[in-house]
């Protein structure tokens, strides 16, 4: 190999190395709630992926569902002098002190997925989904699908009193409000779990003439929908055609159900909250661009037309 070629190779390696090296100057601390659900696990792995893609040095702290652990982690990040902090707050209250400490240390904080009850100037921005919109997108899909046909809907609510359950119910009701042919015949809580979703659906099927009167099932999350699909099959009904199945979250198993023709639509709650957060942080750290305070992620609708097999394959590896 000639000297020139060697030099060219060395130069190319140097440039290849220098790009991530430059970006790696940004160090971000991420205080995650824990791993309470599959979605949370996916959020963690997507955040790590996004950081790697951007060459960000991510310091990850798992709080195991405890606020005091999160506060400790954030104080640790401040002491280490990170460039920015991401927090998925486990509860809404009690953040003022630690956020003030971060502000005094001049470290921008971005909230992921959930909000806090603290003064807005204590954090740079918050990235979250609009749960009312999620419900609205699901409702709109049903309105567009059934047209003028009479349609009795059964609803599987999330945990009674939880914010996603209240908002997803509200959004769905808003979407079907102007359509007298679509009515919610029954609504019960399935606690966001598969087994309760199955049990509640069994009850609905008995109560609605063996399920023959039910036109659609709306579940506040995919897990309950997966349980309800099994209940329909056990009762000799065909989910997806006898009863429309629409739910929210877009976890891998609902795409598997779509592949089997047993689910009709799901609205994505994206686990990629960190991507937009990293974008605003990069812009802010570069030239101090103040981002929008409340960044809303897209609530994308997926139907069997959106390559469910492909979606299943890409999502399966995210730890859902």
């Amino acid at each position, binding site marked *: 190999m000639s000297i020139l070629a060697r030099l060219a190779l060395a130069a190319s390696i140097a440039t290849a190395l220098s790009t991530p090296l430059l970006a790696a100057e940004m160090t971000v601390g991420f205080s995650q709630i824990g*791993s*309470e*659900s*599959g979605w*949370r*696990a996916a959020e963690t792995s997507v955040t790590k992926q996004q950081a790697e893609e951007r060459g960000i040095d991510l310091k990850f702290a798992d709080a195991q569902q405890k606020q005091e652990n999160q506060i400790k982690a954030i104080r640790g990040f401040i002491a280490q002098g990170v460039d920015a902090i991401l927090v998925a707050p486990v509860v809404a209250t009690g953040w003022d002190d630690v956020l003030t400490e971060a502000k005094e240390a001049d470290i921008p904080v971005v909230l992921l997925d959930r909000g806090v009850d603290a003064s807005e100037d204590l954090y740079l921005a918050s990235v979250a989904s609009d749960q009312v919109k999620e419900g609205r997108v699901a409702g709109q899909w049903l309105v567009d699908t059934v047209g003028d046909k009479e349609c009795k809907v059964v609803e599987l*609510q999330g945990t*009674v009193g939880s914010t996603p359950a209240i908002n997803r119910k509200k959004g769905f009701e808003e979407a079907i409000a102007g359509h007298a042919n679509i009515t919610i015949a*029954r*609504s*019960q*809580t399935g*606690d966001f*779990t*598969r*087994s*309760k979703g*199955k*049990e*509640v659906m*069994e*009850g*609905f099927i*008995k*109560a609605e003439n*063996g399920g023959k009167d039910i036109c659609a099932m709306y579940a506040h999350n995919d*897990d309950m929908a*997966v*349980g309800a699909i*099994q209940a329909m099959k*056990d*009762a*000799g009904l065909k989910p997806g055609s006898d009863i429309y199945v629409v739910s929210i979250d877009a976890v891998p*198993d609902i795409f598997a159900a779509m592949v089997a023709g047993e689910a009709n639509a799901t609205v994505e709650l994206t686990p990629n909250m960190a991507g937009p957060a990293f974008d605003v942080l990069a812009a802010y750290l570069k030239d101090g661009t103040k981002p929008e305070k409340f960044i809303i992620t897209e609530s994308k609708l997926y139907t069997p037309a959106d390559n469910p097999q492909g979606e299943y394959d890409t999502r399966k590896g995210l*730890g*859902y």
Partner: protein
Amino acid sequence: MRRHPLMRILNAQTVALAGVLLLNWFLFPGFFDIAWQDGRFFGSLIDVLNRGAPVAILAVGMTVVIATKGVDLSVGAVMAVAGAVAATMVVDGYSAFTAIVVALAVGTLCGVWNGLLVALLDIQPIIATLVLMVAGRGLAQLITEGSIVTFSDPHLIFMGTGSFLGFPMAAVIALVLMIAVTLAVRRTAIGLFIEAVGINRSAATFAGIRSRMLLISVYALSGFCAAVAGIIVAADIRGADANNSGLWLELDAILAVVIGGTSLLGGRFSIPMAVIGAIIIQAMNTGILVSGFPPEFNLIVKAGVIILILVLQSPIAQQLLIFSRRNAGKRSTP
């Protein structure tokens, strides 16, 4: 005086069950309808048996533990562990039989651990089993790596959704377990030993009962029952949900035992009545689902009915009942 056989069946629990079922029928006229479909019975009553089975199975083990003046708070977590073990094993290619045997063994081992803490270290049962209640769920999450492990092994799924002579498999397993354990404790002296230890452990030990061995076996039985319930629940949804499987079911099981008339202070116990207690709880749950109440009422309705049942069972209410009967008897005699 020996009571008439019919009178022996007619106790607070069966009356409460009949009451709850009648109330359900009143709220939903189709409640007692049973159809034959795809080689199995189909109807709300069958749902009650099927859905009530996991708590009924827990209640079998819990009754015996409570009769020794103990309590087992870990059953919900042990369910999650057993479900997680069975699911991950079939996913890893083991046969359903091996997976079930190992899951049952792990559940029993969890029970033995509780028993060792209670019997050898003399830790109060509520604290000893609280350890596993917290740790067990973490263990289950560790096994499933925090996600729902789904499987499609037909033999394992059969445990949760299959049917035997038209009845749901879960209910059949619960019935068999109930009869087996009842016979084991009532046809031998074991039941007497359990009551003796429950009433006064030192007295029982001095009388020659090996109370340590007995306590360990009783907690092992509870762990075994929890494992059975855990396998059924996982098989039912074709997946092990470590976060939610068996969550708070320990409380339902204790409630079932109490409704069944077993004293939390140890001693007197009845396994079949505890199973009826579990069915009463499930009849309420199913009734709420078919009645169309908004979900905000679920817990209030449940609590109201439970208070009513417990008041009817309380010694004062029983005395009042006997007193009024006696009075009525006096008046009728000239």
